């Protein structure tokens, strides 16, 4: 039982990553489409950067979350997966660096439109490549092509096979769909009618494409990954599959009726249920011949990770709620050029006392003595004194700039 809990964290993280970061990756595909069309490209790129800018980093951390939970709780499985699937993971890594860098640099340094072409193209290509590679890696695991061991599987066919290609392409389509719905919801909030029209059309097309591909994919699974097919067509797996199909259809209808916010929830549900379905089908095996229980770390590690996840969630959930609340309410929208409201100027008794200065120097002396000559608690105290000295000395050096200015202007330095 204990052994399964971290797996649940991983699956929740995976669903969150697909839904949130997927929407982010999908923007790359649309940038490519708009790049060919010309015209609205710049406007589209701006709108997606406005929507995604504040949230992309947080969305991205889900991937790190998945990786670290996996290697802590299921070290052998993690090592087997990453060594056999090194090629798609390297491709994903390169894609992540390129698009992240393009994003970070682009968001903060408004470049001239001509210069944007390059980073938009890098951004778009890497945004398509990364979900494909990650999807292909998942396909390799799902179709049982990753054996236990150090690079024990085939380096090529483990990720270039029918199931992997299917899931890779499905990832791209799903990401495109999610992002179109996400952007449409944002355009709706901003009441940008032109964009709503375009994005609604995009959402519907991508949604139909993703749905069709998923149905076709079941045939691929039937031929290439029979255990998954069996799992998804029997018992609880079948329920989850039906739920996923139903949520997907509902999402499409909601998009059709311009209910983008609800469509987003429904589409997320479709993704989450299919992730759960995959887990149910593969259970209890993580990799061929390795069950989740066998792969799990010892009890103390599992308890440590569960405890830290619980505490982490206490911090994380309200923080995420705050971020998405602000973002979805449009609090981050570009506001009319309004300068920083000047705060009231407080009366400042400036000029630091010599007492403070001697206290600072005292900390330096005590800290140096403690750090260099002490051991145990005395040394700890010494290091703390040094830190306190650093903070105080910094304040003494950096704060009096305003008082000095007064002095300088009144004294008229020649």
């Amino acid at each position, binding site marked *: 039982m204990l052994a399964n809990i971290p797996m649940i964290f991983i699956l929740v993280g995976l669903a969150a990553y697909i839904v949130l970061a997927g929407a982010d990756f999908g923007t790359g595909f649309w940038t490519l489409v708009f790049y060919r069309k010309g015209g609205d490209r710049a406007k589209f790129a701006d709108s997606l950067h406005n929507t995604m800018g504040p949230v992309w980093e947080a969305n*991205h951390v889900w991937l*790190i979350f998945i990786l670290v939970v996996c290697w802590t709780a299921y070290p052998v499985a993690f090592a087997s997966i990453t060594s056999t699937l090194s090629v798609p993971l390297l491709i994903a*890594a390169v894609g992540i*660096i390129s698009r992240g860098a393009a994003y*970070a640099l682009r968001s903060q340094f408004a470049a001239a439109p001509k210069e944007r072409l390059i980073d938009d193209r890098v951004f778009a290509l890497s945004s398509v490549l990364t979900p494909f590679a990650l999807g292909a890696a998942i396909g390799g695991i799902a179709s049982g092509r990753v054996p236990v061991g150090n690079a024990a599987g085939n380096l090529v066919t483990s990720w270039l096979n029918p199931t992997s290609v299917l899931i890779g392409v499905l990832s791209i389509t799903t990401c495109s769909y999610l992002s179109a719905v996400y952007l449409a919801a944002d355009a709706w909030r901003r009441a940008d009618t032109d964009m709503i029209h375009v994005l609604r059309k995009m959402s519907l097309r991508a949604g139909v494409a993703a749905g069709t591909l998923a149905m076709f994919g079941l045939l691929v699974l039937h031929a290439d990954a029979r255990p998954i097919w069996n799992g998804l067509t029997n018992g609880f797996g079948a329920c989850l599959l039906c739920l996923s199909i139903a949520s997907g259809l509902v999402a499409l209808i909601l998009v059709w009726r311009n209910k983008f916010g609800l469509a987003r929830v429904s589409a997320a549900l479709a993704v989450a249920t299919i992730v759960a379905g995959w887990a149910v089908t593969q259970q209890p095996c993580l990799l061929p011949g390795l069950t989740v229980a066998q792969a799990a770390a010892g009890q103390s590690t599992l308890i440590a990770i569960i405890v830290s996840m619980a505490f982490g969630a206490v911090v994380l959930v309200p923080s995420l709620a705050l971020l998405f609340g602000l973002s979805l309410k449009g609090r981050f929208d570009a*506001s009319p050029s309004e300068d920083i409201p000047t705060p009231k100027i407080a009366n400042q008794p400036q000029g630091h006392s010599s007492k403070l200065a001697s206290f600072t120097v005292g900390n330096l002396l005590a800290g140096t003595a403690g*750090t260099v000559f002490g051991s145990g608690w005395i040394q700890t105290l010494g290091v703390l004194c040094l830190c306190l000295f650093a903070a105080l000395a910094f304040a003494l050096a*950096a704060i009096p700039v305003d008082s000095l200015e007064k002095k300088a202007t009144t004294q008229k330095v020649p």
Partner: protein
Amino acid sequence: MHAILATTLFAPVNQSYLFQARQMQALSFSVHIPLVCFGIAFPALVLFAEWRYLRTGQPVFGQIAKTWSKAMITLFGVGVVTGTILSFEFGLLWPGMMASFGNVFGLGFALEGFSFFVEAIFIAIYVYGWDRLAPKAHFLCGFPVAIAGVTGSFFVISTNAWMNHPSGFVLKDGRATDVHPWAALFGNPYLWHEFVHMYFAGYVVTGFIVAGYYAWRYLQGNWSRYEQTGLTIALSAAAIATPLQGIIGDWVARDVAQMQPVKLAAMEGVGQTTNRAPEHLLGWYNGQEVVYGIAVPHMLSLLAFHDPNATVKGLDAVPFDQRPPVNVVRFAFQTMVGIASLLSLVSVIYLYVRFRLKRLPATPWFYRTVVLAGPLSVVALIAGWITTEVGRQPWVVFGFMRTAQAVTGAKGIPVGYGTLILVYLGLGTVAAWLLVKLGRAPTKLSNAPSEGKPSGFIYAR
């Protein structure tokens, strides 16, 4: 059954490109670590500027906080992706280590993951919330960023400290059992000096790079209040942190001498265990001793053990195949110490002028040095990490697992390495191009006060 499974299937492989795998990992670290420095120190400096702005109402502080926060989120974004690559590489390159020890040190990264989350969430709220949140709420949103930046690096360093001084498990059939993850990571006496040393390094690197930018502006003839204030804040942080590294370094050296004597022997080129060991400056280790160096008698014994007659263990304490490459470690260590000494001199000059003469230094030579100090501090940072990481070789988990046992059996490491070099070169080119652009039109970004305006602020040129 479990343990048997792991050992038989994760037996060491024959990897002909171990060196390239190490290079690839080292390259990724070298790109990421300077960004970590900004994660540690930059939020605090930004918050300081904003606090001054809220207290004094002077727009120059608001402009500094705003400009810096934009640079901060950009660096953070690049840090997110370069950090992701590192976590990929742990599995891609070192599956042997992950399979055997992931259950011991993984917790550190799980906790770091949460810090990363908090940092990512609040950095976005902070930067995108300028002028959109109430000033006090905005200011408060910066604190989680500063705290998470420190805790995140703390957790990662706890993992590194564990690799250098492992404990909290029993090795059975090549797999860690009876694991105590909390004690392994946070009850480790090797952790604290590493953390404090890195924490101060964060301020050294961030301070000098930011100050370097303003010093460069000074040399270009831009010296308004904006530049003066920016330089004062950044340089004050660096100038206070740098000399303190010497004191902390003394602590670090004694811990290393005690817990990793072979690393110390490699840092100093001590071939044979020696009483009253001298310290050698420069020179070359020829496999026996340091030649062509300047020897300072008793100095090493004094520094490492606070006793001029102490015995310093030599490399001969361990068999030949357990010794790190001495000259790499030694050269890296001397580079770090050399640069630190130079930067300490710059710091002391600055602090003297700042506190005694109550102004900023007036000679262009000072500003030229500060421009150089930024890149130099990064070199010192990386040299320090080379010292500790190459000094740990041939072990990846010191005394328990060799790097060669950890490496992947997958083919094609040189291809991956080459690809990564190209990607980072591309990234570097783009970053350099942006910096140049920024230098040409900085006012667009900073909204600095008009430049021609003379100002008698601190130092009138």
